[in-house]
């Protein structure tokens, strides 16, 4: 089985990289980009039947730093 983990900076945490991307889009002439947030996607190839609780534990312990990041798990 496969799972996809999305890791994003929490709302309210300033994302300087996203801001830089937003500026660059403006420079290219794309108007109306009000905000950009940049995150990570991590794909996991897992043993069949791995419980979602275990994937959440992986996120809590390593894949996301929950001080500044939030995560969501998508089982594919």
């Amino acid at each position, binding site marked *: 089985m496969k799972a996809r983990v999305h890791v994003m900076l929490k709302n309210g*945490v*300033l994302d*300087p*990289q996203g801001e*830089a991307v937003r500026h660059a889009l403006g420079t290219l002439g794309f108007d109306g980009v009000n905000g950009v947030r940049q995150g990570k996607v991590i794909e996991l190839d897992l043993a069949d039947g791995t419980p979602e609780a275990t994937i959440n534990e992986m996120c809590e*312990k*390593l*894949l996301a*730093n929950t*001080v*500044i990041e939030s995560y969501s798990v998508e089982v594919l």
Partner: protein
Amino acid sequence: MRAAVIVFPGSNCDRDMAVALKAAGADVSMVWHKDASLPENVDLVAVPGGFSFGDYLRCGAIAAKSPICKAVVTHAERGGYVLGVCNGFQVLTETGLLPGALMRNANLKFICKTVDLKVETESSAFTEGYHAGDSVGFPVAHHDGNYTVDPEGLAALVAEDRIAFTYANNPNGSISNIAGVLSANRRVLGMMPHPERAVDTGHGGTDGQALFRGLVGQFAQA
């Protein structure tokens, strides 16, 4: 004083750290990240700067889960001293020994220069060689030194006098100009600037000597 310097793949300030500690009189051993235990009777663990594990995933994240870091956390929980500099600070926040996190610098640039810091507290083994309010110059060399902590965490750091150093001119966007913080028991210090790169006249400054001498001196008295 017995000190251990942890070496990760990608550490690059480990030998500078050892030199600074030895110059201050410490007995230093180097400890590889795959070791599961620290040498016996270690008083201080130093987590050096560098780019452990290539900064993969997040700076310090993989190093914080290495076998030796379990021993470092146990050492700290028993009241042992820990100094984390630069990548070492990032590792200590990732282990949870220190609050907050280090994010990408606000201007997105890698910053490599000597910066002026203000000593915020002299009440710790690390800073007792200074006076609160002293201005010191330490080099910084980092891409991810933008310290952030939630409002409750910041309030606790302020109320408990746990901000060790602040930047005179904030180079990286750190909240409240924070350059270094102490643990609740004041025995764990994490800081982005490099005191070990300011201990020899050849470095261009010796403001870091007082930190190492104070720390080692703490044990000489005991």
